[in-house]
């Protein structure tokens, strides 16, 4: 029953925060809930509960393999949130805190959903819970970004609902009793009606792919990530995308059981490489370091999708990469928030010489850059290396070549922008620094912690995590 606490706890805290009268103390709901959530999530990682076969919600191996990463990310964001919201005292934070907490509960629900309908409901609810977070800044640009997010995301999520119905009909047509849990669908396997499964796969990949931000459905991402506060961007890039990825994986397992695994893998491979290529090209040209992070996120979604497409050890590496992505993206978004606040701008034209303005944050940003571009010894290096190995072993040789080429382009684009922003002298006409802004320990510690974790997970991957990823792999591709 403790796994339900992962959902109900944050939701209850959200209600509590919504009713809490004091603006100054309300943000403390965030780290407290985050800590409890992380404790439960890791407790369940160490002592996995048994999941009944037909349960609609459960801490099954797949949830166990990725949810703790999201929980860690949330904890860091929540710790950062307290000083952040103190800096933004001019904005009422009731809706923000409540939505943020509700978002965590719904994210957990979506990770743990083992029923097609429940998964959709939770994913859609996450989308909606993010809306007040996105326009927290209350600027016209923020509303524009929110509108694009809602329109593109709403259409995508609507298509995934249609896809879910199609998958349900595939089961019904194949003589199923209408049990839409993933386990039942996988058990029905080849009994599913093939044309309906294929249609469902296309719609679901487009739908959840929009949520993940796979190209060409990524168009909302740069706007939303660029305009949202740093902690929201971190949760979107590390949490929401992860949910969408697990949703795609759950559906893919059903499609594979229905005997269309080759088609599914081919789609994922094509979309993954296309996302990587597109993101790399945009990274070479963008001048805004928050939008840069969005394109980098698109690139990493491409890597995840590629890993899933390669299957077996590739998928295992993709789980590894989910952790790396959450940790490094979190660190980058949080420091980017610091830099943005210190420099008063986000583009190359306004911002230079950050190493002089905010030396510690700038250092963290560079370290995060090295991590996200997979420089050893950070975690992403190892996960991407595993994916490359798998690509060389299983895929056609051009896949590995394209993968490396895109990584190289992305590396060039990212380093170009980051060093341009960090190096040099601050422009003369720069706006004066926000007087309230100081590089306190409170805002440096969360990204630092995330980076250290990314380092640690790469150097010495804990045995329990390896075992959890293997178990998730077994759940998704049961060997008869």
């Amino acid at each position, binding site marked *: 029953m403790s796994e339900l606490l992962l959902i109900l706890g944050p939701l209850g805290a959200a209600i509590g925060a919504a009713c809490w009268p004091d603006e100054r103390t309300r943000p403390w709901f965030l780290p407290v809930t985050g800590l409890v959530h992380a404790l439960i999530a890791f407790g369940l990682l160490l002592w996995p509960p048994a999941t009944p076969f037909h349960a609609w919600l459960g801490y099954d191996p797949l949830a166990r393999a990725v949810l703790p990463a999201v929980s860690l990310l949330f904890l860091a964001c929540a710790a950062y949130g307290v000083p952040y919201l103190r800096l933004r005292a001019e904005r009422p934070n009731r809706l923000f805190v409540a939505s943020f907490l509700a978002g965590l509960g719904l994210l957990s629900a979506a990770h743990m959903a083992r*029923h097609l*309908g*429940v998964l*959709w*409901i939770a994913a*859609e*609810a996450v*989308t*909606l819970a993010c*809306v007040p977070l996105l*326009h927290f800044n209350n*600027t*016209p*640009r923020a*509303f*524009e*970004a*929110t*509108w*694009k997010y*809602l*329109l593109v995301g*709403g*259409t995508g999520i*609507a298509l995934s*609902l*249609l896809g879910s*119905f*199609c998958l*349900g*009909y595939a089961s*019904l*047509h194949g003589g*199923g*009793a*209408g049990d*839409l849990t993933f386990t039942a669908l996988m058990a029905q396997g080849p009994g599913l*009606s093939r*044309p*309906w499964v294929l249609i469902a796969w296309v719609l679901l990949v487009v739908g959840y792919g929009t949520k993940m931000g796979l190209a060409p459905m990524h168009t909302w991402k*740069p*706007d939303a990530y*660029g*305009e949202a506060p740093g902690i929201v961007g971190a949760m979107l890039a590390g949490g929401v995308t992860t949910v969408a990825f697990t949703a795609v994986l759950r559906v893919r397992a059903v499609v594979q059981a229905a005997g269309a695994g080759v088609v599914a893998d081919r789609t994922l491979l094509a979309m993954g490489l296309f996302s990587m290529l597109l993101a790399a090209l*945009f990274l070479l*040209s*963008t001048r805004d370091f928050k*939008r840069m992070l969005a394109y980098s996120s698109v690139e990493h979604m491409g890597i995840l999708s590629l890993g899933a497409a390669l299957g077996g050890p590739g998928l295992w590496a993709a789980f590894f990469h989910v952790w790396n992505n959450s940790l490094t993206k979190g660190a980058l978004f949080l420091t980017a928030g610091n830099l943005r606040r210190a420099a008063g701008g986000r583009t190359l034209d306004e911002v230079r010489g950050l190493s002089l303005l905010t030396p510690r944050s700038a250092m963290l940003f560079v370290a995060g850059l090295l991590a996200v571009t997979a420089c050893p010894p950070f975690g992403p290096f190892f996960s991407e290396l595993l994916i490359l190995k798998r690509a060389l072993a299983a895929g056609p040789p051009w896949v590995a070549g394209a993968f490396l080429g895109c990584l190289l382009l992305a590396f060039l684009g990212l380093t170009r922008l980051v060093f341009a922003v960090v190096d040099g002298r601050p422009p003369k006409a720069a706006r004066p620094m926000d007087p309230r802004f100081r590089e306190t320990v409170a805002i440096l510690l969360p990204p630092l912690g995330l980076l250290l974790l990314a380092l640690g997970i790469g150097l010495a991957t804990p045995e329990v995590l390896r075992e959890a990823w293997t178990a998730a792999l077994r759940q998704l591709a049961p060997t008869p």
Partner: protein
Amino acid sequence: MNQGLNLLVGLAMGLNLVALGTGRLPSLIRLAAWQGVVLGLMPLVIEAEWRVMTFVVATATVVMKGLVIPALLRRAMRTANIDRDLDPLIGYLPSLLLGAAGMIGAVAVAQRMPLLPEHHESLLVAGALASVFSGLLLLLGRAKAISQVCGYLILENGIYLFGLLLIHSTPLLVEGGILLDLTVAVFVIGIIVDRIQRAFDTLDTRKLTVLRE
């Protein structure tokens, strides 16, 4: 039962086309509302014996899709005080023709797909595909934010039509959750529309071009 249902689905498909051809925002909202009411009546026609839950779902659909959401949109329209012409990006005539082509295509596709015997004579799949297509067309082809929301509503109506195929197998809990989610979605969209109006002083989404590479 199938005759009555097909009549309703046909009606909903007809409303799609009228919505594509209409040039006025109030009539577009009214059309989306009528489609919602037609959809709400369908569960009553499908079910052989009436259960309380069927009745609840039908009432909820009619109230939400037929009354609450249109009222919200109308309010947004009034407060925004916008020009009531729709400003098509895709002209009315091309969108009407595209919609009709899509409708014919939907019927053709629905006939190719393998269906359960009890759904062979039914127009549900065709109606669902046609509505989804019309909704997408409105989303892409109209510039005003509220008309895009209407397109989204029609898209959702199409999905609802498809969901009716599964009405016997999905638990009503799930159906209810889906309905709730969609309603909240439109609510949230309505609020954002309001904010956009205040921030940009327009609801023309072509003006939302601050953010780009």
